[in-house]
């Protein structure tokens, strides 16, 4: 940027060529990023349809005759199906219960700017979960609950409640107060105004937050590793045991990871817009 020589104004054709070259460069860069991020996942799906000989032969690449043998073996063994059922149950119950208590709480914090009270939520995000595991274990063992679904639901709620509040606080903070005031002037109680006016408006946000909470519950490894027994084991723990005991069965392992990644993938494709909004909320405004 030397100011001494004012550049000769480029001709329209030259400017056009430059813009086209930039667009091509940008497109190439974007394609490269998509490949780097996406190919490992594609590789996982491909491996799930390979024989064990093909999986460990990298020259096979992506062109081969697919087999469903890995899926048949994994599903027949049964544990992954039971674990997916457990993960689904724990995920749905913990998410619903979390939404029921977290959405009203987020309304209170967002609507009345109770940020000091809400700092407890931050503490829950900062504290390493392991420091809670031993006391929880101690308490739950006293209550005879270790290994039960109750413990898994409660521990997953400990992640979901702050997450849902985090997402919903900024939503409620952005909602005009006048809506509820008008409803109350028209005769609704304070709670009625929340239930009939604010809550319906918050439905998309609540759905987003709940979907994310479910995904994080589905992915949660540490709590189930400590608190689940064989009958309540969730998917990540089952996968982890697959590595320890059957590290040579790459095909089966990839079939299992494919099965547990599919729901998440489906959520990503269908709910992309909302998930992005949920993941990034709270980062750009208070």
């Amino acid at each position, binding site marked *: 940027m030397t100011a001494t020589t004012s550049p000769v104004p480029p001709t329209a054709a030259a400017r056009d060529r430059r813009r086209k070259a930039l667009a091509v460069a*940008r*497109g190439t860069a*974007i394609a490269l*990023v998509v490949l780097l*991020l*996406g190919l*490992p996942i594609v590789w996982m799906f491909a*491996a799930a349809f390979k024989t064990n000989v093909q*999986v*460990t032969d*990298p*020259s096979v690449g992506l062109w081969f005759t697919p087999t469903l043998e890995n899926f048949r073996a994994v599903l027949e063994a049964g544990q992954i199906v039971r674990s997916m059922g457990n993960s689904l149950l724990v995920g749905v119950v913990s998410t619903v219960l979390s939404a029921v*208590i*977290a959405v*009203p*709480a987020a309304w*209170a*914090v967002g*609507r009345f700017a*109770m940020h000091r*009270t809400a700092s*407890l939520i931050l503490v*829950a995000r*900062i*504290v*390493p979960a*392991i*420091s*809670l595991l*031993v*006391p*929880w274990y101690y308490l739950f063992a006293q209550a005879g609950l270790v290994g039960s679904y109750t413990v898994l639901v409660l521990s997953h*709620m400990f992640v979901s409640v702050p997450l849902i509040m985090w997402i919903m606080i900024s939503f409620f903070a952005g909602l005009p107060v006048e809506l*509820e*005031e*008008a409803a*109350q*002037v*028209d005769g609704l109680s*304070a709670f009625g105004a929340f239930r009939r006016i604010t809550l319906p408006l918050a439905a998309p946000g609540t759905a987003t937050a709940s979907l994310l909470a479910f*995904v994080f519950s589905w*992915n949660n490894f*540490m709590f189930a590793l*400590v608190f689940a027994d064989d009958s309540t084991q969730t998917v*990540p723990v089952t*996968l*982890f045991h697959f*590595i320890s005991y059957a590290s040579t069965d*790459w095909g089966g392992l990839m079939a299992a*990871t494919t099965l*547990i990644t599919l729901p*998440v993938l489906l959520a*990503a494709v269908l709910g992309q817009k909302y998930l*992005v909004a949920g*993941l990034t909320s*709270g*980062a*750009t*405004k*208070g």
Partner: protein
Amino acid sequence: MSAAGLTSAPAGGERRTPRRPTGRRSAVTFEQANRRLRWAMLSPALLFVGAMIVFPLVFTADLSLTNAFGAVNAAKDHIGPTNFTDALADTRRFWPALGRTVVFTVGAVLLEAVLGLALAMLLRRPFRGMRWVRTVLIIPLLATPVAVGILWLLILDPTNGIANHLLTSVGLPPQEFLGSVGQSLPTLVLIDVWQWTPMMTLLLLAGLTTLPEEPEEAALVDGAGAWQRFRYVTLPMLLPTLATALVLRAVDALKTFDLLYATKGPGGGSDFEVETLNVYAYGLTFDYQEYGLAAAVLVLFTLFIIGVVVLLRRRGGGRNA
């Protein structure tokens, strides 16, 4: 405010008319009624999170001053700060674990910030297919970390993995990756970068959409080049979002467990090569039942995380997160 409101008839009146504010009720303003309600709305969540966190933290703090070992409810004595002095004098496990925690977090978060920022600038202007690129972006960060770990174990397998196949096919020497003591931690940093750079990008893209257009246009008119506009106009405006994103990522990176444990197992490998404080504390607790010492390590670790958050927030001037 009620004067104007009272003149309008309640909508769908027949059910709600009895709830019209009476003379006595109107002594309580709507705002006061709302303020009473807010505690009722807040308390279930607050009590739940409080119950799940306050007692355990007190319990852990107390445990750190005892010689608890073997079973959580076994007899134990308070032995003063011995566990803390033991941990801080331990140059074999504690300090290396702290070092690895710092290396992993700083390495991963810095790379994610730089790459995430570059990627956000690349994707900033709308283009055809943006929807699909965003879908690809969220897949790594929604994928189950344990599954991600296993997937990379396959890709990076020293003898049968596709990574070494690609390296050798372009004439580069094959690598040990997770199979060696020296390469494990850097490899895991790169896997974390693969999984979490998209999060950084999405946060920064969200921040970019909130920026006003005018300053950049003004800089363009004044003859600033693309780099100058980014360096002196866009980046300074984006700093608050960047600071928030750094805090969020740093807190999660410090506590990374699933990926490390799934790929290298208990103790972070045969030579503890990826044992961070989190993995160390987990092993002390559940493999060695050294509850007292584990609690001390966890207290130190928690204080360390709080210190990092406070430091980042002060330096970044972030108002939130």
